[in-house]
């Protein structure tokens, strides 16, 4: 029953493969570009239909293009996800064993933290206990930089968080490895790391900051969407996050929306 793919779809997929992740506004521009390049019929707000055609063909290959939201700016992204990987092998082709171990340790720290972030000091300390091959302080910093450049981590003032790409592509892995630590956002049902939490111990639901901004927008007296207890956190301003449906607005935030060099271009 699935509709066949045309060259417009193939070009879209190729671009996804070389970029790993693209923002929703980039995806929209790319959709238009691919349709126009190959003389295909283009309908502006049918991006998800267009992607579904690709996903139908990717499914037997255990891959698909998935939408995710950045925990930091609330913007939507599309990433190519591999379902066969139960480990972080997605990264295996680009990093050495000890670099991968460092990534796992960083992820441990972030998932285990309340803030959904890990300080560079903590990561550097954990690098001392690498079993594969020790990394010097300078090397560790260099590798962390590479993780940020390749869009697996975000960094702000020495605090590292998992990027939207990482959360989208490694959701399966994270759910397997941290079954008790991983909670989902009560509003959008995606993995929640950087978020607010209900303080009712019997409830304790989590809500992403952009989701909280949206959810509590019009409420002067915010209550937990699950247990109805008072919501004790400061409600983030919507303006902090560009509106969800923002189209073709270049993001000014530090989240990686720019098409930086892809994994393809990494050389030793």
């Amino acid at each position, binding site marked *: 029953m699935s509709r*066949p*793919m045309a*060259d417009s779809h*193939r*070009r879209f*997929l*190729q*671009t996804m*493969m*070389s*970029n790993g992740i*693209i923002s929703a506004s*980039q995806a929209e*521009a*790319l959709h*238009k*570009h691919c349709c126009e*390049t190959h003389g295909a019929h283009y309908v502006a707000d049918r991006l998800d239909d267009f992607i579904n055609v*690709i996903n139908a*063909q*990717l499914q*037997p*290959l*255990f*891959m698909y293009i998935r939408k995710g939201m950045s925990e930091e700016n609330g913007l939507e992204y599309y990433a190519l996800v*591999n379902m*066969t990987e139960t480990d972080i092998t997605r990264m295996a*082709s*680009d990093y050495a064993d000890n670099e991968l171990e460092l990534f796992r340790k960083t992820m441990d720290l972030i998932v285990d933290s309340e803030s959904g972030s890990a300080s560079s000091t903590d990561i550097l300390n954990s690098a001392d206990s690498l079993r594969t091959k020790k990394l010097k302080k300078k090397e560790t910093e260099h590798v962390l930089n590479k993780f940020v450049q390749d869009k697996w981590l975000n960094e702000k003032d020495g605090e590292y968080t998992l990027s939207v790409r990482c959360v989208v592509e490694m959701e399966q892995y994270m759910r397997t490895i941290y079954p008790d630590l991983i909670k989902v956002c009560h509003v959008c049902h995606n993995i929640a790391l950087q978020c607010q939490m209900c303080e009712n111990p019997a409830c304790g639901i989590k809500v992403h900051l952009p989701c909280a901004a949206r959810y509590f927008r019009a409420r002067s007296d915010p209550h937990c969407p699950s247990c109805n207890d008072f919501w004790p956190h400061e409600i983030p301003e919507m303006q902090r996050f560009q509106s969800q449906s923002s189209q073709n607005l270049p993001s000014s935030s530090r989240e990686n929306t720019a*098409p*930086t*060099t*892809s*994994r*393809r*271009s990494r*050389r030793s």
Partner: protein
Amino acid sequence: MSQRKKSVSASQNKTQRRSQASLNEDEEASFSQVSSSQVQRARENFTSDQIDRKVAEVVQFILIKDQKKMPIRRADIVKHVIKDYKLLYTDIINRVCRTFEQVFGLKLVETDPKNHIYILINKLDPIQGEPVSMRSVNPKKGLLFVILSVIFMKGGVIKENLVWNSLKKLRVDPGEKHDEFGDVKKVVTDEFVRQKYLEYVKIPHTEPVEYEFRWGLRSEKEVSKLKMLEFVGELFEQDPQSWTQQFREASTVDSSSQRTSS
């Protein structure tokens, strides 16, 4: 073109080839001795779900190798992925090829029929001005494009010195470490050659030894000569048709079957 290629690779690495020969024969034998009844029995041994799964695994294996620009060898595919399904190799690889063409717009091409090495080639034409970069915004591609155009404009094969001199004019000195490319000479003679963008071959009977460059197989398949000619034309503000010979070659190659899009 293919004629020339054969003679070039034949003259290359004779000793290396000899040592590989016995290994290849073993592998070759295990492939050629498969009878059709064996294949038939193997087909019955596996469910279609199992075969689907194998096809997916081979596709992923090849994608990763391609991403790292590492050689894609039949021997590795068999050893790491196909394993017990070896009798069905042809069945599986045919479906893998179809998947690459239909889903990804890529073509799996055997570049070395003796050692069974493949590369993935893009079937879609490169397009300028993509809203999101296709296949990475790699400055090395620019370097490659310049070299390919120099080779092309000089008739398809040039001595290496000519390439280095052309690059020097663009302030890329192969003798110095470049900010963007690092070791330029290594990128050109090793990386581009490994990726099949360029051929870099010793000229026979030269003392001291001299090398020459040609287009590699990946370039032949992926780079549009007509577009390259337009680019060079723009650069020198000349009508591409004024280079009669190149223009003729470019138009015949581009209109021939290699760029069939479905």
